[in-house]
């Protein structure tokens, strides 16, 4: 059973580059302002979510272990 992730996007930082959505298609979606939002935190595997977070050009994405609070990215 894969662990649950808590994924947050800092909207003060997000520029709508949409790379998160490209890498983790089932997790992220752009909102009406064309910024990233977490549509489904269980949408993709942990590896895929971490890859998406790493590819954010402005480091707007934080990924935590939902249960323990351990920071997985950055």
């Amino acid at each position, binding site marked *: 059973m894969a662990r649950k992730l808590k994924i947050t996007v800092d909207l003060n930082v997000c*520029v709508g580059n949409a790379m998160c959505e490209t890498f983790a298609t089932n997790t992220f979606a752009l909102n009406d302002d064309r910024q990233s939002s977490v549509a489904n935190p269980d949408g993709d595997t942990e590896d895929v979510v971490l890859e998406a977070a790493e590819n954010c050009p402005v480091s707007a994405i934080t990924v935590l272990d939902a249960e323990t609070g351990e920071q997985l990215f950055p």
Partner: protein
Amino acid sequence: MVTAINDDLFSPEVVNNPYPYFSHLREEDPVHWNKLYELWVVSTYEDLVWVTRRPEFFSSEVWKRDPRSPYPAIDESDMGLYQEIRDFFSDWFIQHDRPEHLEMRKVVHGYFTPKAMELWRPMVLAAVKELMDEAQESGRMDVMNDFAVPLPLLVIARMMDMPNQDRKFIRSLAEKLLFLGRGETDRMQPLSDGIKGLQEYLSPIVAERIKNPGNDLLSVLANGEKTGIYSRDEVIANAILLLLAGHETTINLICNGTFAFMRHPAQWQSFTEDPAGRVVRATEECLRYDAPVRSIQRIASEDIELKGKAIHKDDRMRWFISSANRDSNMFPEPNKFDIARYPNPHVAFGSGIHHCLGSALARLEGQEALKALAERFAGLYLEIREDDGEFQPSITFRSIKSLPVSWR
């Protein structure tokens, strides 16, 4: 009734101090039809973000799609050259829309992530130290020629694994490419010379990297040919793009940032008291206050209304970073240079899917350069009067011609 707006964006008034001009434009006519050059000038923060985040309405295929003749006009005899240049720039990945843009960008995107760029910090630090040592020895410097040009050029050349001794040659060709944002009627010839020179220089290197790839940026890009995303011509064109964008913009960040500090001694004083602690926000403020890139263009891909103006399909849309970054609806006291400003959501790197690929690298180099200046030369001062700062007559790049400084 709209008061008269000077449509000559290349006039010395607009080139040297664009900020009062754009402040007036934002108030009077935020989406302004510039009759002289037949283009829409988008000047507010809100509209810039709206346009850049809607690539479905505003195409990046500017060179390919623009149905109008070049602006300002070029010599009639250069129309053939213009067509060749047009074909060349159309190969740049930034001159594409989705889905091609995404496929092309992805080839190099992973190379430039903030985490990947962080690994280059020690190398950048060492390069900065070397240049600072040289400056210290001579007792003065031109920040432009002695620091801001050599640093990013060295870094991008290292990333691409180019021979060190080729840097001067590369720069001399890259300087010709800067004519792409200029207004001279005979600008096509230097542009064409720059393109051809760099194509000739890069062709054999790219061929070699395809045969024997390394882990350098050029090999990463060339791999896009193997995966069928780029043609050989496109690999070479985009290598030229990365080479140019990889240093010209950072040159301007270092110079414009230093120039801003020199005109605001209290902010410089504050910075020198804690360079390491204040450099991150200070660099962001330099990017906002006098952004390296002035403006970027799109082409409307359908009829659309913006701020009550009817934009027609194929109209040129030019959005001005230097205007949006001084918009009082976004930034309190926008004309104040405040290195502690936070939050600072400036648009120096644009926004949306075309947001600057190299932003993490630019930030890294800008931070290390400004920090080193403050650490080494707290008594830095301008050798020219601040009103004598002269900028290149470009609507794309905000480039000062020289920046002579000394220190006490």
